[in-house]
């Protein structure tokens, strides 16, 4: 039986995977993006990047994110938050 610690570890791994996906999408160095970074400050975060982001999270995490949800995000941590429950839910099921 998976322990609480294992579940938390899994969560961290998936969050890292998510940040890595963003780094990849925006062609940044791996590990460059931090949760506190504002989306406004990220070069290349434009309307096409938003569409690409939606497509990738759908493909990799099976989560459908709406543009209006992204519009409410101001930081990278906010973006992670959009998938937060889903990342957890995958391992809790």
């Amino acid at each position, binding site marked *: 039986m998976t322990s609480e610690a294992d579940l938390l570890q899994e969560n961290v791994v998936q969050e890292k995977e998510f940040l890595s996906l963003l780094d990849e999408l925006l062609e940044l160095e791996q590990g460059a993006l931090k949760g506190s970074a504002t989306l406004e400050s990220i070069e290349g975060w434009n309307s*096409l*990047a938003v*569409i690409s982001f*939606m*497509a990738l999270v759908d493909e990799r995490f099976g989560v459908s994110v*709406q*543009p*209006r949800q992204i519009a409410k995000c101001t930081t990278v941590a906010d973006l992670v938050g959009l998938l937060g429950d889903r990342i957890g839910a995958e391992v809790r099921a």
Partner: protein
Amino acid sequence: MDLTGQTILVTGASSGIGRETARLCSQLGARVVLVGRNQERLAETLRSLDGEGHRAEMFDLSSADEIPRWLKSISASSGPLHGLVHSAGIHRLRPVRVLGSRTVEDVMRINVGAAIGLARGFCQRGVGAAGGSIVFLSSVTGLVGQAGIAAYAASKGAIVALTRALAVELAPERIRVNCVAPGVVTTPLWQGVLEMLTPEQGAALEAMHLLGLGSARDVSYAIAFLIAGTARWITGAVLVVDGGYTAH
């Protein structure tokens, strides 16, 4: 436009342009063979048709090589097909930076591969009636550029070239091949795309259509025109139905 006594096969008949085209063909007197993947929605289309003698066929068009044999079995019971409309298709909003080969293959398989399979099947003896007519669905995106849809645009541009190549090849057999290039039409396919756009992006796209967005019925008139004897002298053509999108 009169299709009395003719049998027309329509793919993508579960919804959108395919459904509306099937309905219009039935209103013009045709017997329609509806093709789709969703049994419930196909049945709904079937119930909405005028007249009798129609049928619904479930078939997965992703197996292009299976299409000719399947069309042969259709015509064995329904008689030769006077027209074929390939309205089934998929759309993927994928900017090139996230456009993988799997998405490209999926889009090309249904939008183009199936079109070729259907044409191949239609040419078989006993399947396509003499003077038969094929109509493919292209798109304004196959003619002019738009961001974020390279795979879809490539497939719709391929349909234009395919239409012309087949028109030349099949003219000696009096089989006409044409395509319709719609602008944005309010169908379930478009609804799926709209969900990926901001309200501003959707509105901007709508504003590029001088006459506003179109309806499936608008496009179905063009398809029926090309299928029927009204287009007796038209082959290899791209009929743009776009509310003025490509006019400017």
